[in-house]
């Protein structure tokens, strides 16, 4: 996979609004066919990064490449191959759903009418409805239809599900998996920024956590679950004094110990076993727990 040209390549990107630095020295690479997550708190620099990919902002330092092209120089070529769902969707208020889709389709080389029809039915959207009468959830659903029908190689999602109700969020994710990924199995790339991490847990192949514009960590999802673990041990008497410096976090409660570890699991497990615990269990951290653990430490 690594030999393929990355769909997205960001190198040492920096961007500041006046003196407020939004992104600092950010690098990441998204390989074709992957679903890549960009996780961070509000204001961590996710949207600024996305905007640099879409040439809505020009990088002040470093560079971004999409399909090996510079979005600032080859804007049409880049945008022709991607679709984007922003966090705040805006349509012309006087257009109907039907007119909006026709208008957006007019900019695209391809437009799958069958998919469009299926998704309109699935979301129970009325084509005659004016867009200014749509709820926030319906607006996002319309934006998603407009992003999937052109059948692009890359789908960029910026906080797509925040502010939506749980049912709409669930349908949104199912649609990305089904209607989008299934269109060209194994070859469709997704780049999604979100702070609602648990919803995307099963979809994400690889992710970068950013904080205050800087990369905290980049991980492959399977490796992440292997490395980040929660170890619980219970002893007959109060826990022995142990060298637990390799743990990210240690909690002691009576006869119990709870450790959060990053990669040091086997070594610490062995150390705990030597003191014959009554019970010893491990479980992997979820992506959301990894997010908390890496931002706190």
């Amino acid at each position, binding site marked *: 996979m690594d030999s393929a040209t990355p769909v997205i390549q960001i190198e040492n990107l920096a961007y500041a609004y006046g003196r407020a630095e939004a992104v600092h020295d950010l690098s990441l690479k998204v390989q074709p*066919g992957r*679903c890549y997550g960009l996780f961070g708190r509000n204001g961590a620099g996710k949207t600024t990064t996305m905007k640099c990919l879409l040439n809505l902002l020009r990088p002040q330092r470093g560079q971004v490449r999409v399909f090996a092209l510079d979005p600032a120089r080859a804007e049409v070529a880049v945008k022709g191959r991607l679709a984007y769902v922003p966090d705040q969707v805006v349509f012309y208020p006087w257009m109907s759903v039907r007119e909006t889709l026709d208008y957006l389709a007019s900019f695209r080389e391809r437009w799958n009418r069958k998919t469009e029809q299926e998704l309109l039915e699935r979301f129970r959207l009325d084509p005659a409805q004016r867009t200014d009468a749509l709820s926030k959830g319906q607006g996002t659903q319309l934006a998603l239809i407009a992003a999937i029908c052109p059948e692009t190689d890359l789908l960029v999602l910026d906080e797509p599900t925040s502010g939506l109700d749980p049912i709409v969020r*669930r349908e949104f*994710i*199912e649609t990305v*998996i*089904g209607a989008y*990924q*299934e269109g060209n*199995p*194994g070859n469709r790339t997704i780049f999604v920024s979100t702070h609602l991490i648990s*919803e995307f*847990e*099963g*979809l*994400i*192949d690889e992710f970068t956590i950013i904080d205050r514009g800087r990369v905290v960590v980049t991980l492959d999802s*399977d490796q992440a*679950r*292997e490395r980040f*673990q929660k170890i619980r041990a219970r002893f007959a008497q109060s826990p022995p004094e142990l060298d637990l410096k390799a743990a990210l976090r240690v909690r002691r409660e009576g006869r119990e110990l709870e450790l959060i570890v990053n990669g040091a699991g086997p070594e610490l497990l062995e150390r705990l*076993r030597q003191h014959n615990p009554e019970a*010893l269990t*491990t*479980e*992997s*951290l*979820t*992506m959301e727990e990894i997010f908390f653990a890496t931002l706190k430490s």
Partner: protein
Amino acid sequence: MIFQINFKSGMPIYLQLVDQIKAAAASGALRPGEALPSIRPLAEELRVNRNTVAKAYSELESLGVIETHPGRGCFLNETHSALRKEVRRKLLIEEIDQAIVQAHHLQVPRPEFLELIHERMDVLDSKRRANEDHKED
């Protein structure tokens, strides 16, 4: 069949699917010739990446557990182990070794461990029989 994904197990999701299908085949919950769910609806239902389900199915196919009939879907193989005997034994030995190591750490002594194996085999046997009875109804 109904799948259950556990993000806290530490096991890659595709391997969880592989294991559950193998377990379903062993218990008779999935019978030879029976169809597996198609990739898209299964991925949507579990809300996991489509490629993850595809990876699980191709792994099962290379193990000889399932067969793909283009355009019709995936089916549990009639003789659901095309692997040579040594290979099958080797795969099993790895799993058994892991369980033995685990038993040691959990301080489960040998007789109790062996007893537990008999017990589990009985449980799975009775499940399989129940499924077969059900089939005849």
